């Protein structure tokens, strides 16, 4: 039996890697998650036959309860709320890693200090990921919108981290994890997770969630070593490194270092340079804008998170279909951080049945803007601000942007005259070739559709 168990774990590790590999291409992605799912099923089922197991009833009830709740919540969550659901499920994984460590610490049957030390390290990382992810979830859910900051916060957090590492190290050196100290250790680790996530603003949350995802992977790998389970070691480490790279990619796309996301809130730049831009914003009405687009040869649509908030993606899809039928070449320009995470905008547009081969990323679409007749910006702001290219003293200088200002005509659908979340004035809105279409995203796109239909 032991051999069958080991072979099953091996097979599931292989399935995880192949599944993730398939998930990295749009064509095979759908198959990839199924493969990984099969791997998970195999590993879970075979674990029921693990030698010396008890508490089968408890186990089954726990799986049914946790799995059932997740199934229910996962099926009904809206696509716009995906990031916080990922945070929630990720936090649960971190908590589970912490729970494994807690049980092992209570049993205290470690073969050597290495095992004890790794159990403690995994517990620390898992607990931080658990409480931190829950805060991230609460923030994105809108339960705790305002970032918490007070003078000396960073030192307080550093102290908290050092304290939890210190107590953990003391536990490992002592070799006899006593109840009270273990409790203190977990309390400190959980508190650090909370305090680490609280000062971070909503816009930076995706980077942090991705980081917690990587951390959970690492915690799982450590606990996998403690339990001598190769599937956990491999799957956890793969996620740990993949998640770390993904975190870096996200931070880079936002022109932020991971360090500045974690230790310096975006708000601190906010007051420094709002930047004055000369000129005036020129409004346009939907009928004129519709005519402009209908008789254009090439149209590029630049969606931002504002489009998703206004639930305008279905109208956008209708508009795209209408224009395509008239022979207009329609493309979508997707900034890496459009939406709330890299790729989130693609998911939102896919949900509205926009074909994904119309979507182009930054490097692909930027050379096309000078040949574009009309660029339609809807709900995007900072990612199309030419200041990032031209003005070195701007806080967003150097951020990769979509060069929308190079298009022959630019139409910006915008609710009012406000600024983007960075608080920087957008020079694009004052360009000579820019026209502002003020109003709710969904309503305005609806009017554009009417205007084109009535031609």
């Amino acid at each position, binding site marked *: 039996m032991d051999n069958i168990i080991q072979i099953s774990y091996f097979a599931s590790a292989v399935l995880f890697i192949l599944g993730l590999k398939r998930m990295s291409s749009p064509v095979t992605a*759908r198959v990839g998650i199924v493969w990984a799912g099969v791997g998970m099923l195999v590993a879970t089922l075979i674990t029921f036959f693990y030698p010396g*197991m008890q*508490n089968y009833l408890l186990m089954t009830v*726990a799986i049914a309860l946790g799995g059932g709740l997740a199934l229910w919540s996962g099926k009904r969550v809206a696509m716009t709320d*995906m990031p916080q*659901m990922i945070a929630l*499920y990720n936090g649960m994984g971190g908590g589970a890693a912490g729970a494994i460590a807690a049980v092992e610490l209570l049993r205290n049957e470690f073969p050597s200090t290495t095992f004890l030390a790794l159990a403690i390290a995994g517990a620390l990382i898992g607990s931080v990921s658990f409480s931190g992810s829950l805060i991230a979830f609460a923030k994105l859910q809108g339960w705790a919108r305002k970032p918490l900051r007070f003078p000396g916060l960073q030192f307080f957090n550093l102290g908290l981290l050092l304290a939890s590492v210190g107590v953990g190290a003391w536990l490992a050196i002592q070799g006899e994890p006593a109840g009270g100290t273990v409790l203190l250790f977990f309390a400190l680790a959980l508190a650090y997770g909370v305090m680490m996530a609280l000062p971070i603003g909503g816009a930076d949350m995706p980077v942090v969630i991705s980081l917690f995802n990587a951390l959970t992977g690492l915690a799982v790998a450590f606990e996998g070593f403690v339990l001598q389970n190769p*599937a956990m070691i491999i799957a956890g480490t793969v996620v740990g490194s993949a998640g770390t790279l993904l975190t870096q990619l996200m931070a880079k796309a936002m022109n932020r270092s991971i360090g500045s996301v974690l230790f310096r809130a975006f708000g601190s730049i906010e007051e420094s340079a709002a930047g004055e831009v000369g000129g005036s914003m020129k409004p346009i009405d939907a009928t004129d804008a519709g005519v402009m687009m209908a008789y254009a040869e090439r149209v590029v649509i630049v969606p931002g998170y504002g489009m998703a908030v206004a639930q305008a993606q279905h109208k956008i899809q209708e508009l795209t279909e209408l224009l395509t039928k008239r022979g207009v070449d329609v493309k979508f320009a997707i900034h890496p951080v459009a939406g709330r995470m890299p790729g989130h905008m693609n998911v939102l547009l896919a949900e509205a049945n926009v074909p*994904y081969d119309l979507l182009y990323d930054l490097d692909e679409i930027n050379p096309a803007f000078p040949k574009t007749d009309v660029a339609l910006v809807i709900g995007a702001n900072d990612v199309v601000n030419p200041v990032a290219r031209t003005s070195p003293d701007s806080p967003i200088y150097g951020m990769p942007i979509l060069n929308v200002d190079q298009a022959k005509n630019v139409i910006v659908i915008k609710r009012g005259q406000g600024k983007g979340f960075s608080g920087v004035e957008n020079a694009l809105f004052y360009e000579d070739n820019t026209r502002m279409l003020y109003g709710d995203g969904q309503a305005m796109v609806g009017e554009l559709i009417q205007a084109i239909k009535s031609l």
Partner: protein
Amino acid sequence: MIAGMTALYIFMLAAFTGYEIISRVPVILHTPLMSGSNFVHGIVLVGAMVALGHAHTPLEQLIGFVGVMLAAGNAVGGYVVTERMLDMFKRSKKGAN
């Protein structure tokens, strides 16, 4: 027994594997892939089951129970959410133009 250098080799190779998988991914798949990797560390369920399976005292059983519940949530939720996202990636039938 996986210990010492063997464990280090496994860590190293698995880390490279994860890095390679992500480094060639188009941006459009970043969120689904993050969700997918979130599902994959749901393998923690296996460990939580073993921990609960070997728990003796009521306290150990309680913590083990919570662990299995959380882990099952990670695995099932991760799968459902990822599958829903990937379901939407259908190529347009009519072609781009």
